[in-house]
């Protein structure tokens, strides 16, 4: 499977937000725990809306959560 051209810091941000679980983040964003896991592992590219929602949960701008890694 081709790797996504961006990385993310969701796992770290969850840890820094009181060890928030994938399930808790999923509940707040409106997706399943498995979808959060897939995004974290770089297996699934979320929609712009979900990406923004994740960033808003951590009170961070989008580019501090997702970073472009391709060329």
């Amino acid at each position, binding site marked *: 499977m081709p790797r996504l051209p961006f990385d993310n810091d969701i796992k770290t941000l969850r840890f820094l937000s009181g060890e928030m679980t994938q399930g808790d983040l999923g509940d707040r964003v409106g997706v*399943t725990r498995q979808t959060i896991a897939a995004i974290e592992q770089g*297996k699934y590219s979320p929609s712009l809306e979900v990406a923004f929602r994740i960033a808003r949960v951590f009170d961070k701008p989008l580019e501090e959560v997702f970073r472009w890694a391709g060329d």
Partner: protein
Amino acid sequence: MSFREKIHWVAFVGLVAGFGWYFLSYPWATANTRSGMLTSVWMLFPTTIIFLVPMIAGSAYFAIRTPKEANLKEDEREKLIHLKGTHAAYYPLVLGVWANIFAMINGLMYGWSVNILMATLVLSELVRVGAQLYYYRRGY
């Protein structure tokens, strides 16, 4: 494993069990007769039971065990998986319809027609559910 993935596994096993029994037990020698077609129709009752009972039991079991997940709406990743699986199932469906047209043009009728259509439906469903299970495992 998510609630929907578990339900897909139950559906996959139910399909294989129900229609596996059907296609292995069907009296193929009589397929091209009216009685062959009626046998098909009658065999659909136990086939449906073999397929539906584990589906209902499995859904109820997993819904009781994980009620929160069972009540969740499909999210965007699950919708994508759903669409990709349905898209993959389109191809065997088209092939089956063409096979049926070919069979009817060549004088095969009744039971053969019913069975080709049923095999088409089952194969398409297996491809749909199988593809969805693959995407669930892969991540999307």
